[in-house]
Structure formats: structure tokens, C-alpha cells
């Protein structure tokens, strides 16, 4: 080790250790989130929660109104169809993707909801997707209590 200086060491013999943070977690969906997921799984129903004070319906539902901080308890079923607020045709590749690109993602305001739901858009070419278009939910045959029990949203049948 004699005679080494920082200057001599700099940029040489760099040792890089591979590692990863990998901790399995169990997340509770909570009282309100659980109801939403169970309804999706068992009845293909999309549930929102309404703040009577603010007259605002949240989808997905949440326990506390972010406007008035009141506890929310009033579940309401919202439509399986809605209007596309914004979207992206996503081309970039990442290790967290669930399907190889391109994937189309959108934020959909379901009929009766006051917030938008982020989801996948399917059965349509990316070039044909337009903000403002009507979309409807397609449910998976096998459902397990997940936001992905909705397979994706597809262009709604006219009329």
C-alpha cells in the first residue's frame, strides 16, 4: 500500500458491487380500497365513493376527502364506460413494464365519477386513439381483486 495517493488512485481499479433492494411487502388495500377490489373481482362493478359535502365522487375510492378532510363512507357504483381525458402511446422499454411496448395508457373519467381512472387502452391502434373518445371497460375472465381485473378500456360501441 505504500506510496498510494488519491490522485494516483483516481479512476483506477474502481470496484463496483452489484446488489438489490428486494423486500416483499404486504400492502393493505384498506377498508375502502378493499371494497373496490372485491366488487371488481366478484361483480365486475366499479365503485366510487362520494363526498356529500363536496358533491365529489372519487374513483378509485379513498377514505378521506382531500377537499374537506371528511371521512367518506358513501359508495356509489359508477359507469363501466367513460370519456378519455388524456392518453399516451408509450414506446419506451423498462424492466417494470407488464407488456412489451407500445402500450397505450389513458386517464378515463367514468360516467358518474368526478376524477379520472388511469388504465390501459386496448383493441385499438394507437393512432386512432383520441382524447374525448368514449371507452368501455373489458373485464378479465379470471379476476383476483386487482385494478388489472379490468383488462383494459376499449372504444365503446356507438350508441
Amino acid at each position, binding site marked *: 500500500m505504500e506510496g498510494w495517493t488519491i490522485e494516483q488512485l483516481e479512476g483506477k481499479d474502481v470496484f463496483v458491487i452489484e446488489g438489490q433492494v428486494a423486500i416483499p411487502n404486504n*400492502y393493505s388495500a384498506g377498508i375502502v380500497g378493499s371494497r373496490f377490489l372485491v366488487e371488481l373481482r366478484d361483480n365486475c362493478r366499479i365503485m366510487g365513493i362520494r363526498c356529500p359535502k363536496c358533491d365529489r365522487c372519487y374513483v378509485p375510492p379513498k377514505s378521506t376527502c382531500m377537499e374537506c378532510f371528511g371521512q367518506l363512507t358513501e359508495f356509489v357504483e359508477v359507469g363501466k364506460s367513460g370519456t378519455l381525458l388524456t392518453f399516451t402511446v408509450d414506446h419506451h422499454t423498462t424492466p*417494470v413494464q407488464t407488456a412489451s411496448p407500445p402500450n397505450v395508457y389513458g386517464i378515463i373519467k367514468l360516467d358518474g365519477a368526478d376524477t*379520472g381512472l388511469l388504465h390501459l387502452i386496448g383493441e385499438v391502434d394507437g393512432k386512432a386513439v383520441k382524447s374525448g373518445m368514449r371507452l368501455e371497460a373489458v373485464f378479465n375472465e379470471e379476476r383476483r381483486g386487482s385494478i388489472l381485473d379490468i383488462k383494459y378500456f376499449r372504444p365503446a360501441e356507438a350508441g
Partner: protein
Amino acid sequence: MANRVAIVAVAQTRYHPNREDVNEGELAYEAIAQVIGETGLDFSEDGGIGLAITSSDDYWDGRTISNNIVQAAVGAHMSDEGKVCEDGLNAIYSAYTRIVSGRQDLVIVCSHMKESQADKSMVENLTMDPMFLRPFGIDYLTASALQARCYMEKYGITSEQCAKVAVKNRGNARNNPFAQEPLAITVDDVLNSEVMADPIRLLDSKPVSDGACAMILASEERARKLTAKPIWILGVSNCYEAHYLGERDLAACDALSTAAQKAYRMADIKDPVREIQVAEICEEFSYQELLWYAGLGLCGAGEGGRLIDSGVTQMGGSLAVNPSGGMLSGVPNIVGGMSRAAEIVLQLRGEAAARQVEGPRIGLAHGYTGMCGQLQCVMVLGN
């Protein structure tokens, strides 16, 4: 009147795509050593720096309690220490409040990040709600693309106008010796670059970056003795909005508007466009600079495209934005806001060399944390 607080020394590393030659502590020390050297301060109990506040991110650093590794480098050994797991401008805010309260008179802050150490999309996906967002396997680029389209369609903002931000900032970076990726590019180069998540293209996005920034904050009494050019924090505020994208108006940036208005009120700024001469703002994607213009009150809602077209925010304009090249030219997340403030300090001291704006008196620094700018922080500085 509360105590005044000044920034008395700033330093940045040169931003780089991969500093695997150093660990986080060694990287931070490159900036720390400069501000310590410049002020001649130490960490002694009697008259030395009494507190170190760092900003870093556990997931990016791949260890919880990411401040562990910089403890010695920032003088936090056997000393008062704090960590902000948010953009570095919030660390300055935190240090500011400690001095205003009278608890401390000298605080060192440091923001450090090696984005090269982890996969961006994995880290970003882990910040998202595990029930309703994470399962889609999206990252901030995807989320930002949803915001970009929402904003652009609502106000008729064009891809060309977004591209102008990338051209301006990458071009400005050519005058900044700390910049990672200065580029002479054209609007066409941006528009012809690879589509990442429509409407965001490769050159609309910032590259992976490593680097650190440090500064020393002082009470008025200490600041006067340490430097002939103290830069005063005149106003500061932050504001947090909904995490879930569908609960926000993505064509607006309400948290930023609120943070900016509070910071301006505190600094007694009534007309930011006329009273501020230089701004450094965080823009991981080009559309953000246009959207943030309105949030910062530099133009009306939806007028960001017109503002960039007008040339006001170019070098030589009456309100130059990102003379340093901004984040688009390569500045890490977390370091973003502190490095913006450091650049404003250099501008207000007249020490910004080739990227110097002519004689600014009031400057604006901005930083954000999280998906589509969920947490916004705004600081007004003056000389």
C-alpha cells in the same frame, strides 16, 4: 421582523452520466470541500457550522437512511443532522427555518445523487400507489406523457414550442462548465428524435446524471462577516398536491401556483415578470418548463408556448430562464432544485461567467419532487 438568512457559499460538481469512480460520500465531499474551503468554516461547537441537512433518496441510493454514507463528508459526525428525502430546494427551506428560528446561525446543506446506480423506471414505479398505479408498470415518463398531452391539447401548445425549450436549455448549457450534455441542436433535431412516450421524445427528456451540490446558509450577522456578497432568501414556500393523477388537473399545476404566490407574497413581489430578472427552474421534460411558466406566474394559464416564442426567457431576454441549461442538460433528480438555487446565487453575485445575465437583482429558483410535480418548492433570492 424575522432574522434574515443568506446563502454565503455554493458549489456544484460537474454533472456526469456515471460517477462510478466515487461513492455518494466522496461525491458529496467534492462540493462540501469547496464551500468549507471558501468560507474557512469548520464544525467546531464554538462558532462552527451547527447543522448539516442533506437531501437524497433511499431508493435511488439503494439503501434506506441514504444519509448514512455522507455523515462524515458533511460534518454530521457527533453533530446536529437532518435529511430531506425530497428535492434539494426543500433542504434549503429546512435550513432557512432553523436559522430564522434562531436555533442555528450556520447550516451546511448538500444534495447528492447518483442516478446511474439504479434503474429510473423501477425507482419511480416504487413511489407510486401499490393498488392503483404500480400494477401498470409505469414510470414518471409515462405519467408525464399523460400530463404533456393533457396540457398541450387544452391550450394548443405545439411540439415545436416544447422543442424550443430543449434547444434553449441544451444551448445555454454550452456556457456552463458544470453541464453534462451541452448540445447545439435545432427544433427539427428534437422533433426527429425517438418517441419515448408520445408526445415526449428523447431530446425532450433529461439524461441520466450523477452529481452533488452544497451550500452554506448563515444568519445576517454571520453572513456579513463571511462574505461581501451575501445572497438573501427573500421568499420561500412549498405546496403538495394529490398523488393520484386522475385527481389532479394535469393541464394546470395548482401546487406550483400556490407555492409561487406564497413565496412572492413573502418577498413582496407583485409582478414577477417585471421584478425578477433570472429564473432557474427544474424541467425533466421540455413541456414542463412551459407549464411551470404559468404556475410561477410568469405568464397566464396556457400561455407558456407564447412566452417561449416571444424570446423573453432566452439569454438576453428580460427574464432569462435556465441560463445554466436546466435539468434537461443533465442534472440529477433531488439535486435539481439545490443546483437551481446555486446557479441563481452565482447570477446574483455576478459570478456566472459565460452564462451571466446582465445585472440581476432578484432571482427565482424552483424545484419539484415526484410524479408530474406533486411537490413544488419556490424560492426568491436577492442580492
